[in-house]
């Protein structure tokens, strides 16, 4: 009897559908790519090296969405952190101090977003659209939109580069470990702590959460700070990888992160989602990009396919919600 209920119960988790699609896509791409190149070492290496950029950021964005809020300013926090890092390198600031200041950039932007959203009670989509434009404008004015190469101040192989971008045994990029480690840490917080429960309750029903004595403002501010911090880590990783600050860093990430979270089963209305789903959702979006090119399909169609996948999962999630609440 229990065994008979197991499959419907497993399927009632939104992430399980994403996982099924993810595995199916892996199989399809491996079988149908010419010379079965999908699982080729170079491709997996590139995915493990590049996917964490979006993945790490989406962890924060997804959890914030579970909390019932959005953050579009991520697209400015990433290059802003990178800019501060490159500039401080130029000023000769010690690397450890530079690291702390760069991470603080994200924390401060996150704090400001959190305060704005909780104080004004206006939709975060609009408020963070505003902060996105504000920070971007400031960044463009400060940088004059010029890239800043970092190699004259930071030779290759620095301790920070090894920690963030190293390659273990010549085959495994450390970036992937960062994604896994941060995902495990955040999964622990979200799924096994009281604070994690507060996030779910705040996103599901804020009024009820307040009635239960939860300081929902604090919960949201912490979630925003988390997003900012993760964006700074991504900005730093990108700056070290591309060996420069570029004003174009992170362009389009804000919507891609939301799309990845939706594919991973996070509800746009808040209160529903999981870290596992967010990670699988991000990876799904990324392997679609890679797999379609490996299949030899024209790259122009990638957006269409990703769009279709996002719509499919948004619809699917709606029906799973209805099904699981019956």
């Amino acid at each position, binding site marked *: 009897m229990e065994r008979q209920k197991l499959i419907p119960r497993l399927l009632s988790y939104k992430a399980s559908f994403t996982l099924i699609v993810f595995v199916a896509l892996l199989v399809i791409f491996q079988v149908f*790519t*010419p010379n079965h*190149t999908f699982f*080729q*070492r*170079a*491709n997996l*290496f*590139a*995915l493990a*090296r*590049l996917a964490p*950029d*979006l993945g790490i950021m989406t962890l924060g964005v997804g959890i914030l969405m579970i909390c019932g809020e959005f953050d579009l300013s991520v697209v400015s926090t990433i290059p802003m952190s990178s800019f501060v890092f490159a500039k401080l390198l130029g000023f000769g600031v010690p690397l450890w101090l530079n690291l702390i200041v760069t991470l603080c950039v994200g924390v401060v932007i996150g704090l400001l977003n959190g305060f704005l959203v909780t104080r004004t009670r206006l939709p975060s989509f609009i408020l963070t659209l505003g902060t996105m434009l504000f920070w*971007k404008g400031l960044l*463009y004015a400060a940088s*004059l*939109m*010029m*890239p*800043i*190469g970092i*190699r004259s101040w930071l030779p290759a192989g620095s301790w920070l580069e090894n920690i963030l971008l190293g390659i273990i045994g010549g085959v495994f990029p450390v970036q992937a470990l960062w994604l896994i480690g941060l995902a495990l840490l955040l999964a622990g917080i979200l799924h096994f702590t009281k604070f994690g429960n507060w996030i779910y309750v705040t996103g599901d029903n804020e009024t009820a959460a307040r009635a239960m004595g939860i300081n929902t403002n604090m919960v949201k501010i912490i979630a925003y700070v988390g997003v900012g911090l993760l964006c700074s880590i991504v900005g730093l990783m*990108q700056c070290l*990888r*591309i*060996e*420069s600050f*570029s*004003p*174009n*860093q*992170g*362009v*389009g*990430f804000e919507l891609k992160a939301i799309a990845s979270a939706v594919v991973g089963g996070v509800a746009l209305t808040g209160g529903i989602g999981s870290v596992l789903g967010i990670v699988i959702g991000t990876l799904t979006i*990324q392997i679609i*990009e*890679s*797999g379609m*090119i*490996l*299949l*030899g399909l*024209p*790259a*122009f169609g*990638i957006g269409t396919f990703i769009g279709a996948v996002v719509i499919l999962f948004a619809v699917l999630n709606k029906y799973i919600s209805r099904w699981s609440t019956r």
Partner: protein
Amino acid sequence: MKRRVLMVSALALLLLMLIPALTFAQAKPGAGMYFRLITHGGNDPFWAVFQKGMIDAAAELGCRADIDLAGSDQNLQAKRFQEAVAMRPDGISLCINDDKMWDKPVADAIAKGINVIGTNNDDTQGSAGNARLAYIGQNESRAGLMIGRAVFAAAKAKGWDLSKMKVACAVEVAGANYGVVRSSGIIQAMAEFGIPGKPEIVDCTIDMTTAEQRITSYVIAHPDVKAMFGLGGICTDRLTSGMKNAGKQAGDILGGGFDAAPGTIQGLKSGYMIASIDQQQYLQGYFSVYVLYLMKKYDLRPQIDTGGYLITKDNIALIEKLSPQNIR
């Protein structure tokens, strides 16, 4: 008394010092003139160099000049153009980034007595397609031809069989004028070197991570591709990393492209990139002001090709030196 004499002497000295400065300011030929440069640019470093050229020229001529950056929003750019026309400046320099939408606004502005010249982007038909009075910018097709020639000559020098060579082009904005025209020059170079077919276009977006991922996947999926071009600065910047990610050594695939972003410079130094084209946009901003000034004064109407400066590992040091000054 002594104090008063001292004060009068100091004032007289100050006046004496100011006279040459005032005379010099009045002597500047463009004093009182105002020009407006309306571009589709925005979120990339390219335009900071363009703007620097404009500022330097305006300072030399003693005129005023402003730049509009529409951030690739054509509607906003059109609005800025109309606003500029309403201000009745002494001349407008415009990025003509569409073959149709600028035809009437430019003709109307000229009919109102405002000089309008094209810069950076031109109608694909040139003066036959748009009423603009002059053009300053890179001949994109010639630039494509030049970079194509440089890369294919390197392939020939390696003794590769060019008749079997596959070529690809990575582009940030698929279908954009610059990519289409630049790739047409590359196609012309392919024909010159006996390379059959056309290059495959890889849509990479303007995000660096996405561009790198797509270039990597493309290189893995197409082991027969032996030459790859970035049609814009971002894709050119990411070519080297894409090739490295795909397990290629320098020289396995010959890279070429446009502009001199940090990744491109590293690629040129490490041998993954054969050459890159600098369209010298400093000159586009600089000459825009000078040409509008000369047009107002003498009705001169030149066509200036600013592009075609080939950056290779031999002259990369100069680019590295001038880049932080927003000149290259």
